[in-house]
């Protein structure tokens, strides 16, 4: 039976390989490029490290997870089909070793690594892929967000190792989300009556470097290195995941986490700007080294190309006050960006000029030049306001006639409570606007009420932030269609040229051509000023215990320290 199976497999392999080589020249095959991990020196294995987790993960199942804590846990337990090299963004084989994309970019055939195994020793097969895909696409599965990526995708299993995704309409990021597909084990869930509430969703059977040993809710999660891990000798993995035991301590309070880090109870921490300025380089300066060799703990400050979160003021364009671009531009000229950066972000942020990460290839390079961007300029602002018809009668508040009625320039600026940085920004904005004759009323509401106001468009202007992402799609926030159904275009931005460019960018597969389109979108949005782009995180700020070493701390496209490379200094 074993021989028969192998013969069938060999026949398929011959067919598959000849198909790959003989088909049209448009067909794209995965080409393995050398990665940093292959060149790494051999590292020690062993030891225990404690990391902080802000909250309990909601699930330990990659199909159901949507919160960052669940995603953090996922990273230890499961592998996707391919990983992205954080230095180059090239694909690195993970569960799969090959892919072939058809000439029309509608078929994506993958080959699984024959070595790939679940932690119970059973092989990872196409059946697992099929089961995961079918479970994901079942509308009863609570995976709506992930499922939305796979709308219009179907899956065909070829054999135990090969399978093909067919997509109706290929887009620029189709390969990215297909390679990021994380299968779960069919055996664990095939008899499950209700997948969403199955006990297995908190009892993971993974295929990655770690195995979950114990979970004490709201206290800690313990992971042990899987010493029989199938990928442990593969070139891209043999020197990674060196720590024997990883304990995620659940500490919601950032101040307590900071003190625990200083004491050595947790070994790595990410700082915010305030902690960095007031503590790390302030009152606790003596406690920190700048290299691992100097002190018990040390601090790391590094720039890289990972798109960072950015903060902005959003103008509700349905409000007559903000409908004219001249007024919006004037409002942007009236923001003291330098003061915000100095006093709120301690010079650790830069002025943001793009929704796609101001320093990435998706953003217009011209907007990185100081003379091309909007900076604090009251004279320019007043002249633009005048051009748009705002008048000053000496009362201290500007006015204008809108639809036959005298309207004072007064509005409410919303922000979410428990965010002192945003409140400080609101106060700075209020002060400078007042000097120009614009009255701002600040309103802070707790997060859920804030979201409610935003979704119901019950606001005039607000301060908020968006996360950064490596492959941004402008459709979510900037397409006019995204205004409907509580969509992300909550300011009702509508520019047909931008809509057209978004369509174009989403079907452009050539990365550099796509970058050019995205840059144009960035340019138009910046001219229109529907948001006043405020600040963008500039540095990755990390605290590390000196007992850890690593051949590389942060790579080009990573959002934090490369903890998979950590090992203990003996």
């Amino acid at each position, binding site marked *: 039976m074993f021989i028969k199976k192998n013969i069938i497999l060999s026949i398929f392999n011959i067919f598959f390989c000849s198909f790959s080589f003989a088909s049209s020249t448009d067909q794209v095959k995965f080409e393995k490029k050398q990665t940093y991990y292959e060149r790494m020196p051999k590292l020690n294995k062993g030891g225990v490290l404690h990391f902080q987790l802000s909250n309990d993960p909601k699930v330990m199942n990659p199909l159901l997870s949507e919160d960052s804590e669940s995603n953090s846990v996922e990273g230890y337990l499961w592998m996707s089909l391919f990983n992205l090299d954080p230095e180059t963004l090239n694909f690195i084989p993970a569960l799969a070793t090959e892919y072939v994309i058809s000439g029309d970019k509608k078929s994506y055939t993958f080959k699984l690594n024959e070595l790939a195994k679940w932690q119970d020793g059973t092989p990872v097969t196409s059946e697992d892929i099929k089961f995961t895909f079918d479970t994901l696409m079942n509308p009863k599965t609570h995976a709506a967000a992930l499922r939305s990526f796979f709308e219009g995708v179907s899956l065909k299993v070829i054999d135990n190792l090969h399978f093909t995704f067919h997509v109706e309409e290929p887009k620029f990021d189709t390969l990215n989300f297909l390679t990021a597909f994380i299968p779960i084990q069919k055996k664990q869930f095939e008899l499950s009556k209700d997948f969403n509430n199955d006990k297995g969703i908190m009892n993971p059977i993974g295929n990655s470097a770690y195995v979950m040993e114990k979970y004490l809710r709201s206290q800690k999660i313990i992971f042990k290195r899987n010493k029989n891990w199938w990928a442990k000798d593969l070139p891209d993995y043999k020197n990674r995941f060196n720590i024997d035991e990883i304990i995620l301590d659940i*500490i919601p309070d950032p101040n307590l986490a900071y003190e*625990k880090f200083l004491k050595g109870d947790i070994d790595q921490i990410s700082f915010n700007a305030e902690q960095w300025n007031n503590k790390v380089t302030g009152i606790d300066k003596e406690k920190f080294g700048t290299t691992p060799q100097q002190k018990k703990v040390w601090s790391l400050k590094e720039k890289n190309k990972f798109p960072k979160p950015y903060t902005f003021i959003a103008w509700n364009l349905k409000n007559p006050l903000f409908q004219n671009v001249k007024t919006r531009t004037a409002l942007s000229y009236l923001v003291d960006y330098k003061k915000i950066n100095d006093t709120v972000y301690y010079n650790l942020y830069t002025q943001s000029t793009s929704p796609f990460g101001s320093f990435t290839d998706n953003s217009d390079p011209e907007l990185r030049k100081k003379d091309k961007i909007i900076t604090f300029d009251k004279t320019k602002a007043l002249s633009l306001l005048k051009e748009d018809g705002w008048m000053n009668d000496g009362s201290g508040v500007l006015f204008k006639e809108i639809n036959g009625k005298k309207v004072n320039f007064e509005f409410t600026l919303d922000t979410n409570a428990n965010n002192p940085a945003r409140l400080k920004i609101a106060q700075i904005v209020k002060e400078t606007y007042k000097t120009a004759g614009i009255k701002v009323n600040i309103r802070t509401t707790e997060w859920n009420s804030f979201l*409610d106001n935003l979704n119901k468009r019950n606001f005039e202007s607000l301060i908020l932030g968006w996360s950064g*992402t490596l492959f941004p799609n402008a459709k979510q926030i900037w397409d006019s269609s995204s205004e409907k159904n*509580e969509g992300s275009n909550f300011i009702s931005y509508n520019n047909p040229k931008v809509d057209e460019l978004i369509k174009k960018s989403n079907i452009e597969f050539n990365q550099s051509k796509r970058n050019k389109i995205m840059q144009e979108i960035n340019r138009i949005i910046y001219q229109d000023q529907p948001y006043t782009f405020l600040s963008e995180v500039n540095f990755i700020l990390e605290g590390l215990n000196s007992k850890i070493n690593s051949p590389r701390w942060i790579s080009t496209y990573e959002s934090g320290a490369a903890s998979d490379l950590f090992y203990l200094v003996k």
Partner: protein
Amino acid sequence: MRKYFIRRFLAIIPMFFLMTASYFCIQNYLPGGPVQEAIARIRGMGGEGGSTKSTSMGPEDIKKLTHELEVQYGLDKPALTRYFIWVKNILSLNFGDSLTTRAPAIDQIIERLPISLSFGIPGFFLTYLIAIPLGVVMALKEGSKFDTISSFILFITYSIPALVFAVIFLLIFCTDRFLPFGALFPLGGWRSDNYEDLSFILKFVDLIKHMFLPVLASVIGNFTIFAMLQKDSMLEVIRSDYIRTAKAKGLSDNVIVFKHALRNALLPLMVGFGAVLGTFLGGSIIIEPIFGLPGIGVLSLQSLASRDFNVVMAIVVLQSLAILFGQILNDIVYVIVDPRIEYK
């Protein structure tokens, strides 16, 4: 008296439904909820974190996702229907699952209850153990140096919130910032990492090490007012006619204080005795987060913030019952302390 207590017990039923129905209505009309929160998280809204999985959600996706999440969280039905379903479920002790962690709501409470109780119970007894004798001695030595110094200290501890004490204790005794010989206590948490491997005695020591400061901070927050109350009550009693008569009869001071005065002077303090049940079961929303204790207090805060309806309602049930039974307990304690009291 029996009839009175039977009536009190029966009154619990309508009171319980009134309390839970009110809360169910209130939380139903709170703006925002788990659906909006989940969508915002998926969209990358907030901008404090790193990257997000999805940034391509169009309006149709949002509409579909909203509906799916409403079904997922059981929010697709009208509030009244949901309340009746909830009542039906809790009658079979099914409190539903947490909307955020998917674990049964009651399991989360059961997991966290020992943590809240392990500093709530010692805190309660210590509060009474310190407040009663201190108040009595202050009353007996009214105007003395001891009374002046004690009153001054009580004034300070009353003026400073428990929150501040907790933070100060944490910084002084749990870090090596101030003490030359380093930290005396662990920096928050409930147990050490190696707790499971410890012997029974070492487990007890470990628990005390973790609970000492939280208990101290909660006691300081409570005992001042109790001590002052006890002092005033004692003063009132020892100035009364029957104590003067007892003194005139030549009874010893100890007999007068402990046999005649104290029992009556304790009555005002007993007013809040039953309510303490609620405090035990509700945890502390001040002390727990500071010391990283994942108790009921922290759970209440987190669940309210994330509109985790099932967990909030499970806590409301627990607290409602604790308050209602606590009132009956109060009546019983009154009778024990003063047998002259008779309920009709």
